[in-house]
């Protein structure tokens, strides 16, 4: 088994060769993987701050896409000392502490984008925290790094190239490891509410919805999924109260 020092050495040289946003993408992917494995008391339950580790990772992923301004990151999304303290305080087991470290290091790696700081340390330390949180994830982490290197070369990524984390495909393409928390899509549904013009005919609506379904299905498959199914179609009688995205 690879020791932590060997693992850190493996990461260091390779991350140093990655562009700025790609480094943060690697860190964010590690954070997502580990946040998904953290016991639910931290990862999934709303806290008094109304934020979870998974929510933090949602923000990091959004920041990578270039659709977040520096001001928004600094003022709304960069974890504050209060948030960091909260997560550090609530983590009790070693695994939870390493998971919190992993996500907070990833936040620092993303912060480097907005500060234009070319320091690979935060991304390396994110990988190491992921190793410590779950050594079984090492092969997956190295595969993610290899994928990022391949995409960097094939698409000529630069420091300015933004990254949609979905380019890396499913977290667990061969099925998630046994005994780890369930990250399957059981009980998750994707809901679209569609506003139709008064003049739309039934035939036109039907044709459009079939087309939309096919387009979403193709995109799901391109991510490595096995397609979608419609489980409901109805006319909302009143505004539905959707919850936020759950990771």
């Amino acid at each position, binding site marked *: 088994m690879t020791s932590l020092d060997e693992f850190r050495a493996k990461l260091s040289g390779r991350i140093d060769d990655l562009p700025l946003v790609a480094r943060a993408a690697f860190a964010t992917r590690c954070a997502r993987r580990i946040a998904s494995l953290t016991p639910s008391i931290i990862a999934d339950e709303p806290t008094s701050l109304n934020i979870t580790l998974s929510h933090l990772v*949602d923000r990091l992923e*959004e920041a990578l896409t270039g659709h977040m301004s520096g001001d928004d990151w600094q003022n709304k999304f960069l974890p504050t000392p209060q948030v960091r303290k909260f997560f550090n305080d609530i983590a009790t087991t070693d695994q939870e502490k390493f998971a919190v470290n992993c996500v907070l290091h990833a936040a620092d790696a993303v912060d480097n984008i907005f500060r234009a700081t070319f320091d690979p340390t935060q991304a390396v330390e994110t990988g190491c925290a992921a190793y410590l949180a779950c050594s079984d994830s090492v092969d997956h982490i190295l595969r993610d790094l290899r*994928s990022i290197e391949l995409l960097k070369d094939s698409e000529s990524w630069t420091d300015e190239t933004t990254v949609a984390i979905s380019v890396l495909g499913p977290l667990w393409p061969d099925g998630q490891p046994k005994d780890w928390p369930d990250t399957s899509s059981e009980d998750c549904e994707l*809901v679209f*509410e569609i506003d139709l013009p008064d003049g739309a*005919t039934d035939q036109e609506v039907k044709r459009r919805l079939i087309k939309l379904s096919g387009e979403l299905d193709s995109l799901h498959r391109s991510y490595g999924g096995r397609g979608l199914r419609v489980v409901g179609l109805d006319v*909302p009688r009143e505004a539905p109260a959707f919850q936020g995205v759950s990771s």
Partner: protein
Amino acid sequence: MSRKIRITYEARNKRDGKEMLRWLQSDATRLIKDLDAEIKIDNREQSTSDLRPVPDEEFETDVAAAANEELDRLAELAAAVEDRQSDTGATESESATGRLLLRRRREQKEAQERLRSGIASAAKLGIRLLISLTGIKAPKD
């Protein structure tokens, strides 16, 4: 007054991670946002003739069934392609994994472009997907 329809999807195979549904939501939301200005302009150009009542239950069932027929057809096509690829003896070597990654990346770009065109084309008819009410329901437990 415009009509609203809510359509709900789930992963055909529940073993697919929920992250993929989140990515779909994120992609669709971004595409809709990018097209928002265009959609608003097109909405103003819509005729309000041929008013119809909101769709009835039979219509809802019919459209859901038709959409699922199309999704079943796509699933059969995908399964056939997968069979052909496994017949070629593809292995899980690093090079095979790399090829798969790059092929999926190409497919993602194509699929995103098709979805973008579909949303833009629907917008031209005044059909609008609402961003704020798009989401993944939290696990029921």
